C-alpha cells in the first residue's frame, strides 16, 4: 500500500506538477498550487482543504483511507454533476467558513500546519460542531459528503464496511464478539 504522501505526490504528478515533496508537512499547500486546472468544481485552494480534512477525518489505517479512495475527486464530481447552484454556493461558503475556523485554531494557515496541529485543530472544531449547542451545519454537511463519498467507493464499502452484495440469508441476531 502506498503512503499517504505518495498518494498526494502521485496526484500532483498526474496533473503535471513536478514539485518534489520533501516532507508531508505543507503537502496540501503544494498540492493546492498544482491542482486547480484538473478539478471541475473546486478551486485549487478549496481542493487542498477538502483533501486535507478528508485525510484527517478518514485516514488510512489497516484499511484504505479517504485519499486512497479519492474522496476529494469524488466530491468534485458530486458538486459538478449533482449539486445545483444553491448547493454549490452553500458548499463553497461552508468550505470558506471551515478554512477560517481552522486557520484560527492553527494560528496560521491550516494547510501549512503540521500533522499534529492540523489534527488537533480539526478535532477541536469537530467536537464543538457536534456538541449539543453546536452550530456548524456547514461543516457537518461537508463531513457528511466526505463520509458518504468514502463509503460509496469500493474501498470504503467492501474493505471498510464489509458490504456484501448478496447476503443470501437473514440473521436478525448476530452476537458481536468483543
Amino acid at each position, binding site marked *: 500500500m502506498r503512503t499517504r504522501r505518495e498518494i498526494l505526490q502521485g496526484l500532483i504528478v498526474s496533473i503535471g506538477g513536478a514539485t518534489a515533496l520533501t516532507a508531508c508537512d505543507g503537502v496540501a499547500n503544494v498540492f493546492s498550487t498544482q491542482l486547480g486546472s484538473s478539478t471541475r468544481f473546486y478551486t485549487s485552494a478549496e481542493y487542498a482543504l477538502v483533501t486535507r480534512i478528508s485525510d484527517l477525518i478518514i485516514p488510512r489505517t489497516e484499511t484504505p483511507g479517504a485519499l486512497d479512495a479519492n474522496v476529494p475527486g469524488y466530491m468534485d464530481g458530486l458538486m459538478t454533476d449533482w449539486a445545483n447552484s444553491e448547493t454549490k454556493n452553500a458548499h463553497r461558503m461552508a468550505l470558506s467558513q471551515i478554512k477560517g475556523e481552522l486557520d484560527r485554531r492553527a494560528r496560521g494557515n491550516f494547510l501549512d500546519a503540521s500533522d499534529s496541529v492540523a489534527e488537533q485543530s480539526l*478535532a477541536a472544531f469537530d467536537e464543538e460542531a457536534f456538541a449539543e449547542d453546536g452550530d456548524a451545519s456547514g461543516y457537518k454537511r461537508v463531513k457528511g459528503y466526505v463520509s458518504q463519498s468514502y463509503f460509496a467507493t469500493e474501498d470504503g464499502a467492501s474493505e471498510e464496511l464489509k458490504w456484501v452484495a448478496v447476503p443470501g440469508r437473514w440473521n436478525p441476531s448476530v452476537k458481536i464478539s468483543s
Partner: protein
Amino acid sequence: MADFDAIVVGSGMSGGMSAKELTERGLKVLVLERGPEIVPERDYVDNLAPWESPNLDSVAQDEIAEHYPKQYGGVAYAIKESNKHFWVKDDEHPYEEAEGTSYDWLRGYHTGGRSIMWSRQVYRLSDLDFNANKTDGYGVDWPIRYKELEPWYEKVETFIGIAGSAEGLPQLPDSVFQPAFELTDAEKAIKTKVEMTFPERNIIAARVAHLTDATDEQRSLGRSNCQVRNRCHFGCSFKAYFSSLNATLPAAERTGNLTMVHNAIVSSIEYDAETNRVTGVRIVDAITNEKRLYTSKVIFLNASTIASAMILLQSKSEAFPTGLVNRSDQVGRNLMDHVSGAGAVGMISGFDNQKVFGRRPSGGIYIPRYANLKGQDKPYLRGFGFQGGSSPLGNAGGQIAGIGRDFKEAHKNPGPWRVNIGAFGEQLPNPENRVTLHSSKRDRWGNPLALLHVTYSENEHTMLEEASKDAVAMLEAAGCTNITANDVSLTKPGNRIHEMGSARMGHDPESSVLNSWCQAHDVPNLFITDGSFMTSAACQNPSLTYMAFSARAAHYAADLIAEGTL
C-alpha cells in the same frame, strides 16, 4: 369478429393478475401498456454495487426540479439515479390540482407498472372492513363480505408468495404464508412489553410479498428465494419479490394466449348502445401518435384508479353523456388513499452487542389495527395500523462526532438500536374527493389532464393526532429512550400510492358503478379491477385485495363467456 376475447388495460399489479387468470382460462388476451417495455435482464439495476453508481446514486438536483418535482418530492427514498427510469417525468405526464389542494400522483409507466416499485406489504381485509361503511354510514355498503373473497385471497397468495406468520387475528386474517423474516431481538422485546401493557395490541412480523420458500410453480417461472439484499426498488434479478413483470405476466405469456402492446395510451372505450356492450379500445401510440382501435368481447380496466376513471370520463356517448357507466355520477368520486404523518422514533438499549446479517427488505414489524374493533371506542372512526421496525443505527452518514481512526472504526459498529413506527390510517370515502377532466388542458397526445381535488376530513386529522400519542405510549411501554414524535403532519393525498375508490362497487346502480364482481352495473362486459372498485379504503396495504378481486372477476368473466352470456 373481435380481435381478442379480452383486452386488459394496464399491466401493473391488477392488470397482470387479470391477464394471468384470463389467459389460463384459455382466452386470447391483449394487454395494453401505456409505457415502454421493461426487460429485466436489460433494465433492472439491482446488481449495481454502490461504487458503480456515480454521485451517491443521487439524481442531479436540477434534474429533479425539471423532471421529477412531484415524484421525488413524494418518494425521495426510492428514486435514485440508477432507477429513475422506473418513474414518470412530471413534465411529460402532467396533472392539475384544484386550487387549495395538493396531490401526489406517483407513477411508473412501463411493463408491470408500479408493481416493480412497490413496497410489497400485503394484508387481507376482514369483515371489519367490509362492514365499515354500513356500520358508520360513510360511503355505500360493500356488496360482498370476506367469506366470498377468502378463496381468492388463498389462490393469489399461493401464487405470489408471502412471507409472514399466522397470528389468528380476526381483524387481519392470516394469509397463505412462507416463512416470515424473523423479528430482531429488539423487536421481540418491544413486542413482549407492548403486548403486556396493551393487551389489545399486537406486534407481528410484516407480511411481505417475498419468496422465502419458493414453490415449484414459482421456480418454474424463474423465481427464487429472497437474497436479503434490499435492492427491491431497483428491480430483482432473482424475481424474489412479486411483481407482474416477475410473475403474472410470464405466467400469462407461457399460455400462448397473451399479446402485449406497449406505448399504447388509451383514449377511450367504444360502446355499442344497441347491444349494450363495450366493443373495443381506442389508443394513441405514445411514440408515433398513430391512432388504433382494438376490439374484444370483454374489457378489463386496470389502468390504475385515477387513469381508469379518466378513461371512463373520456368515453362519452349518447347513452352515457357524462362518461361511460357514469349513470350514478360516481365515476371519479370517492378518491381515497391511506394517510400517514404520525409516528414515533426512539432508542432501545440492551442490544449493543448485537447486529444483523442481511438487509431485510420492506419493513420489520406491523401493528394491526386495534381501534374500534368491538364498537366505537375512539374519538375517530375506523382505524390505522403501524409499520416499523428496530435495527442498529449503523452508518450515520458522517453525522457522528469524531475524526480519524475512532471515527472510522465507529462505522464498523452497528451502533445503538433505534425503533420507529409510523401509522397508515384509513381515509373515509367522500364524494367530493374526486378526479375530473380538466376543461381545457391536454397532454401531448391530446387527452385531457386529470384535475385532482382531494382533501382530508376532520376524522383523518383526529385519527393521526391520536396515532401519534399511541405511538409514543407504545415506545414508552417498550422502555425506549430519546423518544421523539414530530408534530403530526398529514401526508399529501396520494403520497401513500394507494389511490382507490373512483368507480366503487355497491348494491345499487344509482349510487355505485360496479357490482360485487367488479362488473359495471350498466355494461356487463366491462370489468374494473384496479383500486377503482374499492368501496372503502380500510387501513391495510391494498394490492393483495386488488389482485384477489381481479382473479375472481376474471374467472367470472370467463364463465360468462363460456356460457355464451358475453
